[in-house]
């Protein structure tokens, strides 16, 4: 919608510039934009268990101390102390694997939310059973069901392993 008005106002050749202006205008005027938008055209950093090496290091703007450490890294690594190696790791990565895998309390929220929605659904289903369902078919009644079972036994439904196999025809009762 905004693009159309911009196109009409801006004219054919300056459309791209006007669209750019209108976009920033929209960003300034609306309250619903995300405050910091990630530039997806630049290499990104991520902490992922399945993709271990991201496109860029965690800290890429280095102060002079970090810069000198990075210079030292270009030499033999046996010259680095343990603290320096850990500092280099922390420059390159945000979380270690154990930190990434650290368990959280999210499962309680998930299970709790699940049960809440089960409960709401249960209420909805109960209301529905009372107010929405039509009356049951007459074939569900006790008398009809008894007559139905008798007819199935008379027809010898599944007499070997199934229904009629469980009926004792001599003594007229269930086995």
């Amino acid at each position: 919608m905004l693009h159309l008005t911009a196109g009409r106002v801006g004219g054919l050749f300056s459309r791209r510039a006007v669209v750019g202006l209108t976009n920033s205008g929209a960003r300034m005027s609306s309250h619903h934009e995300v405050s910091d938008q990630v530039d997806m055209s630049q290499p990104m950093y991520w902490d992922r268990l399945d993709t271990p090496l991201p496109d860029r290091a965690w800290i890429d703007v280095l102060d002079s101390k970090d810069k000198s450490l990075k210079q030292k890294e270009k030499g033999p690594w046996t010259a680095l102390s343990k603290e320096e190696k850990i500092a280099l790791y922390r420059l390159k990565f945000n979380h270690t694997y154990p930190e990434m895998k650290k368990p959280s309390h999210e499962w309680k929220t998930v299970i709790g939310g699940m049960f809440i929605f089960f409960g709401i659904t249960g209420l909805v289903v109960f209301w529905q059973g009372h107010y929405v369902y039509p009356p049951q078919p007459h074939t569900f009644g006790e008398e009809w069901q008894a007559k139905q079972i008798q007819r199935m036994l008379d027809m010898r439904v599944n007499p070997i392993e199934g229904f009629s196999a469980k009926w004792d025809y001599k003594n007229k009762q269930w086995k």
Partner: protein
Amino acid sequence: MSLAKPAMRGLLGKRLRFHLPIAFALSLVAAAAFKYGVTEPRKQAYADFYKQYDATKEFNNMRDAGVFESVRPTGE
């Protein structure tokens, strides 16, 4: 710090050599269990039923119960 170099090759082969015999054995067990738990008892049940089966008697019982449309119960 010097850790042992991890296995770089033959991972699938190792997994198959471990899991395939188990898979075959479990499949055979499942088949045998089904054969001797289900099909053999079923065959026996059918054999026992038909050993003592009198078709005419059953027909007359069903007829007298009134489930047929082609023949009415005896005495109607």
